[in-house]
């Protein structure tokens, strides 16, 4: 039997687990990075093998644009859910945060905090999913870090990401820019991510075909900004944790306005509605990971809506109401039933109700 020179036994990705050595910074750490992370993310920046990445200056900056940066922590449980996993969720979430500023996302960083005992097979799955999402979005992970915590201190895998992007000169999209008269548009059906994740929680087991809507929205945003007259898209935000209801309240507060929405116009799949009924949850407060809500100047609403509907991620885009002047900053909703109520801030966690 001949043993190859410089043979290094590869990680047992099938059956192996993370142990404290992998976080110590020594050979085991290096092997983990090479065989799992670098292999999956593989790009010019990572191949340099440095602690940081030297990035070229994007064209928009040279022309008077500005940098945009955003960060996220990902703690979703379970790690794998219908329609996605923590890996692709991490990419989509941060790409979207940057895109919601009207910016073109450029680069991501990823910090992994792994629990001792976490299966390498699961790690490989997460990392490969993350890498695929990054490739598909055209936004590479250019730098990263890995740490390991003792068993019992970490819930498997936490991921923290930072995203960097650039806005061209003259584009100012933000939560404080919504104006009375603006049309509110949502890019598609709400409530799917939250319902998909909840359907996996043990005590709430229910069967549904609902999958998470997790997706990178930057090309949808680009399509919207391309057709809109300059400055017509005032506000973009993705209604993640806390759902549409919370996002609308956040904007109302930041922009010092009120809102009036029509429940009948909010797109929702019947199964999501049914699942929320069953659990006693209000779909307005359920997380979305592949949707955005926009406040658009009224004269531009039609053309922006058309551009959204022409994009695969905006096929069900709909007008849901408008921004109004209101010193109390209420988000009011005309119910399907014909009455009116306010959509308030979410209180605490949306615990499934019994009552």
């Amino acid at each position, binding site marked *: 039997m001949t043993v190859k020179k410089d043979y290094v036994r590869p990680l047992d990705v099938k059956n192996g687990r993370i142990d404290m050595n992998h976080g110590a910074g020594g050979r085991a750490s290096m092997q983990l990075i090479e065989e799992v992370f670098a292999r999956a993310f593989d790009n010019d920046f990572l191949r340099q093998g440095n602690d940081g990445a030297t990035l070229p200056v994007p064209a928009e900056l040279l022309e008077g644009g500005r940098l945009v940066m955003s960060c996220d922590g990902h703690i979703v449980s379970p790690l794998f859910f219908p329609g996605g996993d923590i890996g692709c969720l991490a990419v989509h979430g941060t790409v979207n945060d940057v895109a919601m500023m009207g910016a073109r996302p450029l680069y991501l960083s990823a910090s992994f905090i792994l629990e001792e005992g976490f299966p390498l097979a699961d790690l490989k799955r997460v990392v490969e999913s993350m890498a695929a999402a990054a490739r598909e979005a055209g936004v590479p992970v250019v730098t990263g870090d890995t740490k390991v915590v003792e068993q019992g201190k970490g819930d498997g895998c936490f991921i923290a990401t930072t995203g960097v992007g650039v806005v061209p000169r003259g584009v100012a999209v933000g939560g404080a820019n919504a104006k009375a008269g603006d049309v509110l548009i949502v890019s598609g059906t709400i409530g799917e991510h939250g319902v998909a994740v909840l359907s996996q929680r043990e005590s709430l087991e229910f069967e549904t075909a609902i999958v998470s809507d997790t997706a990178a929205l930057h090309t949808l945003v680009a399509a919207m900004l391309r057709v809109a007259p300059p400055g017509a898209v005032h506000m973009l935000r993705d209604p993640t944790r806390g759902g549409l209801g919370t996002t609308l309240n956040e904007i109302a507060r930041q922009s010092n306005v009120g809102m009036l929405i029509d429940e009948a116009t909010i797109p929702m799949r019947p199964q999501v509605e049914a699942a929320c009924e069953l659990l006693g949850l209000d779909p307005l407060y359920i997380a979305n990971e592949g949707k955005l809500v926009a406040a658009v100047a009224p004269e531009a609403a039609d053309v922006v809506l058309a551009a959204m509907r022409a994009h695969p991620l905006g096929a069900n885009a709909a007008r849901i109401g408008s921004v109004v002047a209101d010193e109390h900053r209420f988000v009011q909703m005309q119910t399907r039933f*014909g009455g009116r109520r306010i959509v308030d801030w979410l209180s605490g966690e949306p615990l*499934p109700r019994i009552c």
Partner: protein
Amino acid sequence: MKYVDEFRDGALARGIGARIAAEVRPDRRYSFMEFCGGHTHAISRYGSAELLPEAVHMIHGPGCPVCVLPIGRIDQAIGIALKHGAIVCTYGDTMRVPASPAAGPPQGGQHPLGGREPQASRGSTESLSLMKAKARGADIRMVYSAADALKTARENPAREVVFFAIGFETTTPPTALVIQQAAKEGLGNFSVLCCHVLTPSAITHILESAEVRRFGTVPIDGFIGPAHVSIVIGSGPYEHFAEEYRKPVVIAGFEPLDVMQACLMLVRQVNEGRAEVENQFVRAVTRQGNLAAQRAVSDVFELRERFEWRGLGEVPYSALKIRAGYAAFDAERRFDLHYEPVPDHKQCECGAILRGVKKPTDCKLFGNVCTPENPTGSCMVSSEGACAAHYSYGRFRDVELVAESAA
């Protein structure tokens, strides 16, 4: 969703609203009390009040079992977790109800995550809740059904598992079933802290209260009977109120159209001087109710002589306890618990609000000290509580309506 969507039709709602407006007498007001948490929620969530004429006024009664749960009972549940180290399983609704400050031991002054325990330092006045106790290390788990609590007991044979059982008659039969099941399996580590309460007692108590009976300061012209409680107990038990107190009762289904039709039926009874029990929820409620459920309940539970209701004081024969035959599953016996009544915050008006005597906006604490984020009283915790419902859905009515934009 069949049997759901059709009962929420907005066009029909407007039509029925118009019919009610046509039939109310011009010279009087109509005040109807509903005491089903689900009705409170349905009315607020759909904005049904707007579709009723001015003359019809809805009062939210004590239909929310979370709201009527006294501080002392939450303290017991927290105590079981913190002092006895048991796993306490509870429905989500109870997690945020504020109880007494720091009801548990200081854990040697150190919190598992570092930092000193507030109690071990200066003594905290922060109210504990099951959720806050959980943050302090109590093993409190939210369950969707009593069966989940039983499952937890099976999966943790070395730990005590206690199910915090609350609710009116709708929720009681499932608890009875798990106790019967636990007995069958001989589960030695499972018990139930029984705080089930009874609807008819709540109504009687209100009708007997000073404001209503003697002084007529809260004119209640009729009751909207609870939907799902009535599926279990039937329409029979309400006949007593109609007769004795001369008040009409209309049992209404859960959907907003059901509530509107029930209002119309009550308006008609009042106009015609009748005081009968009518059943609007004919698709699910019969006169005798669900006998299988009633049998299970009477096998496992019996009446408590008295039980404190938050805001209402002690109400006789208004709650259930576990029979001697199932004593092994009674958490009160197992943990030798004694009930300590704890008074509400001095300015909390939950009691008056639960009796329908005051509105949320009559309470000085509403919206400032007491909010859904920081509830002082239980009416603010549960989304069926009158205060939470008003805060979350209706408080825009307290201010002048803003000019509508041309949407």
